[in-house]
């Protein structure tokens, strides 16, 4: 065995390599997105995936081997979901002030987000696994992955659909709301946070501070609601 080969066989067997690669790819992507001024289409997750996936493919590394290292980062999704309680708590006064619009908009938006996707997927004749993976796509990734797994979807496919949904919401929200002449920043922010989770929330903060706060409220509340209604919707609509 040559030196390079033995080094590679060592590196490919330790979690260190792909853990480090994931962290570096993210830092690079985040820096690139920042230098562009965080446009919604330059999503750091998407760029990171586009950096890592070809390397895995070229080096003949399986996803299982990659995940042995990357699981340490993946694990943080759980505590991060729990941590969403803090922004909800911090915004409790704002929520209390418009509790009725928030609760009704949450219910309507959440049902439409999941229900319309499931129904359209059925019309297009997609497979059951893909439909189940689509159900939780409007909620924040850690919750979406958990729901997808719980109802029998493909969590890694859900992750991709969640990211794409976030980008679509972030790119379309301002033109849509301007077209409809909606000037209430609370309503605009709430809508994009609900439909497009963290990516939509980040976009809302760029446009308006109040919209951003309401987007964050919508994202956290939808994380709670989606995990309750998507399993029921799936049973009802499939």
């Amino acid at each position, binding site marked *: 065995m040559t030196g390079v080969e033995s080094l590679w066989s060592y590196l490919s067997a330790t979690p260190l390599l792909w853990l480090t690669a994931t962290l570096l790819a993210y830092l690079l992507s985040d820096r690139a997105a920042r230098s562009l001024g965080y446009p919604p289409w330059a999503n750091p997750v998407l760029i990171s995936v586009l950096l890592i996936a070809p390397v895995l493919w070229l080096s003949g590394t399986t996803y299982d081997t990659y995940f042995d290292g990357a699981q340490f980062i993946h694990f943080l999704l759980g*505590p991060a979901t729990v941590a969403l309680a803090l922004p909800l708590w911090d915004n409790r006064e704002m929520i209390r002030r418009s509790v009725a*619009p928030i609760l009704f908009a949450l219910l309507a938006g959440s049902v439409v987000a999941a229900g319309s996707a499931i129904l359209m997927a059925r019309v297009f004749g997609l497979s059951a696994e893909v439909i189940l993976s689509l159900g939780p796509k409007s909620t924040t990734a850690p919750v979406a992955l958990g729901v997808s797994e*719980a109802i029998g979807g493909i969590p890694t496919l859900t992750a991709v659909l969640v990211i794409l*949904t976030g980008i679509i919401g972030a790119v379309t929200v301002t033109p849509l709301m301007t077209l409809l002449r909606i000037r209430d920043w609370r*309503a605009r922010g709430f809508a994009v946070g609900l439909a497009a989770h963290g990516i939509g929330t980040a976009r809302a903060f760029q446009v308006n501070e109040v919209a951003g706060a309401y987007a964050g409220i919508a994202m956290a509340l939808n994380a709670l609601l989606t*995990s309750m209604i998507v*399993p029921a919707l799936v049973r009802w609509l499939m």
Partner: protein
Amino acid sequence: MLPTLALLLTCQLIGEVAARGLGLPIPGPVLGLALLLAALTVRPFIAQTLRPTVHVILAHLSLMFVPAGVGVIGNLDVLSEDWAALLVILVASTLLAMLAAVGTFLAVRRLTEGREP
């Protein structure tokens, strides 16, 4: 940082145990979120302890999606087969969800406006 991590993990652990023990379809971390919210209501001062670490975690939420996102390499067959349908579905249902949310928000706000302080 360590007390915060311990608290977040404890909430998640109780959430996981409850979700699995009671056979609930809700992910354990979501129950953990509800539990932490309840804890904050009872003991508001823990917010100060949580804030610095939680701020770092939530600012880098994107990093945590990367390992799952890379899983796309295992789903290229699904995506290459259904990409057009999936794209139409994602765009249409995201727009519909935003319309439903914004419409309901404005309608209910109008109905309740008189009773707001």
